[in-house]
């Protein structure tokens, strides 16, 4: 009876996972297709004409043409990939520097106004990006950094979600450890760097990873802030792809998602712990 139930559960979950695996397989297969096969199968989805879709989970014969074409002969893609790196990684560093200490204070100190302050971060976090974007736009305009990489880096640093996630994670750090460190004469910075950071590490990693995924995927911000198309990030390569480059679209889709996916597979454990901490009410 137990065994039967377990089999039923496994089958259900397997079916759910197929919904994830199949689309990814379709994408992977399309990356390996030579140009003529791509046009034969996917003319309509690529926006090149009207023809029956002939979906496949394997290419008729594998070819690296479209990957090579994208990586070796598409300087535009390379430039946009590099733009993404410039816009995302400094922003993550900034987030780390600003959010981690703030979260430590919210999690481990008692001070008047703390509840309201944390509530304010939660409200900021829930507001749709488009609402805070109006404020951001006014500041960027005043600072004269619209149409530069800074326009994407600066507002991102002050995002409220990382503060929330890190706070929840720091709250799981045992109070006794912190107290013991103080008794041993540890200073505030020592307690933060040697107890908070190592023990709250899953939350820090999670917050940065979620920000990374979100910003690597940025769409609204660059479209609104960057009139100069040479600054556009890689997330806008596919939406804006030229007709004669359509054959590399799937390769671009794969390369674009490679970095976030590999990061996730590498830091999976931290991510699960970090997200889990933010779901526990303490």
């Amino acid at each position, binding site marked *: 009876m137990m065994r039967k139930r377990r089999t039923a*559960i496994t089958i259900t979950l397997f079916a759910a*996972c197929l919904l*994830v695996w199949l689309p990814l397989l379709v*994408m992977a297969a399309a990356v390996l297709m030579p140009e003529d096969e791509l046009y034969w199968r996917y003319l309509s989805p690529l926006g090149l004409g009207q023809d029956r879709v002939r979906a496949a989970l394997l290419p008729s014969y594998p070819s690296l043409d479209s990957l090579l074409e994208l990586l070796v002969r598409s300087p535009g893609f390379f430039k946009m990939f590099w733009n993404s790196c410039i816009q995302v990684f400094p922003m993550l560093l900034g987030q780390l520097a600003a959010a981690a200490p*703030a979260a430590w204070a919210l999690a481990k100190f008692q001070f008047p106004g703390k509840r309201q302050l944390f509530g304010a971060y939660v409200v900021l976090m*829930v507001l749709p*990006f488009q609402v805070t974007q109006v404020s951001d736009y006014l*500041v960027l305009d005043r600072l004269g950094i619209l149409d530069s990489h800074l326009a994407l880096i600066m507002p991102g640093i002050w995002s409220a979600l990382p503060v929330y996630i890190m706070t929840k994670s720091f709250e799981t750090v045992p109070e006794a450890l912190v107290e013991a460190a103080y008794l041993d004469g540890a200073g505030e910075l020592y307690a933060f760097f040697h107890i908070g950071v190592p023990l709250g590490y899953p939350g820090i990693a999670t917050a940065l990873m979620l920000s990374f995924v979100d910003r690597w995927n940025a769409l609204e911000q660059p479209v609104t802030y960057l009139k100069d198309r040479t600054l556009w990030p890689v997330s806008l390569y596919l939406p804006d792809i030229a007709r004669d480059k359509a054959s590399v679209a799937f390769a671009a*889709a794969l390369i674009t998602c490679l970095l976030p996916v590999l990061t996730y597979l590498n830091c999976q454990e931290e991510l699960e712990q970090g997200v889990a901490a933010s779901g526990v009410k303490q």
Partner: protein
Amino acid sequence: MRRKIVPWLFLAPSLGGVILFTGLPFLDVVKRSFQDAMGTRFVGMDNYRAVLANSAFRLAAGNTVRFLAVCIPLLMTVSFTAALLISAGSNIGRESKGAADTGDRYSVFRTTLVLPMTIPAASMVLVWKILLCPDGVLNQFLSGASGRTWQVDWAFSRWAFPVLTATYLWKNTGYDMILWLAGLQGISGELYEAAKMDGAGVFARMWYITLPGLKGTFGLVGILSVVNSFRVYREAYLLAGSYPDASIYLIPHLFAHWFLDLDIQKMTAAAAMMTAIALILAVIMGMPGMKRRKR
């Protein structure tokens, strides 16, 4: 005395940035929402009246509320089911085979279900088009199954709403599932054992132990689902462009159009209103996620 200033020193970088980049400009937003286009003359509530009377705003606000009302309960149910299945599956495994081989199979499922969250919307759009375009797989399947020809343009018709819902579920189920799993783990196994001894069935255990034990998780999952829900604009935009079917014309579409026209008055008034609504909701819900007890 020294201790009192310490938390504020830790908070300073973040707070300073938030005040400079969000707080002060927001005051500017509020000020401008009461002014005319040139920012010279106060016009009272005119901008607010203009926004509320704007038919595009009414459409977008209604659709956004509808989207949240449909998608969030749906997402919470689906992810909760997935979490229950995974936790039940690995518990049975632990009872019947010992701890050794339990995790493995189920951790593959967990990894898989979380994976979509990390994949950029732009990467998946081509695959969704293969499935959903008029010549696509879904229509072929339905034609084959029903015997008549299907030529629905799923992303551009009244079906756009369910399509968007599906992409939202595809992307966010894993995240919520981890939250639920954390909540489930917090419930003591002894409670279930005791209930079983007393003859409580599966549903009784669910109703009297599992659900009450997840009370705290419930609100947090809801909030984090709302946070993720506004990102669905990316899928909507990439699949259906900036003028989609009326059923999925959401607040972000509207703001994108106002931004193109630089309609500062409407934008500021709408932003101020939405912030006010969020604040009111936050106060009503009593700042969820915050510790209440004093230490």
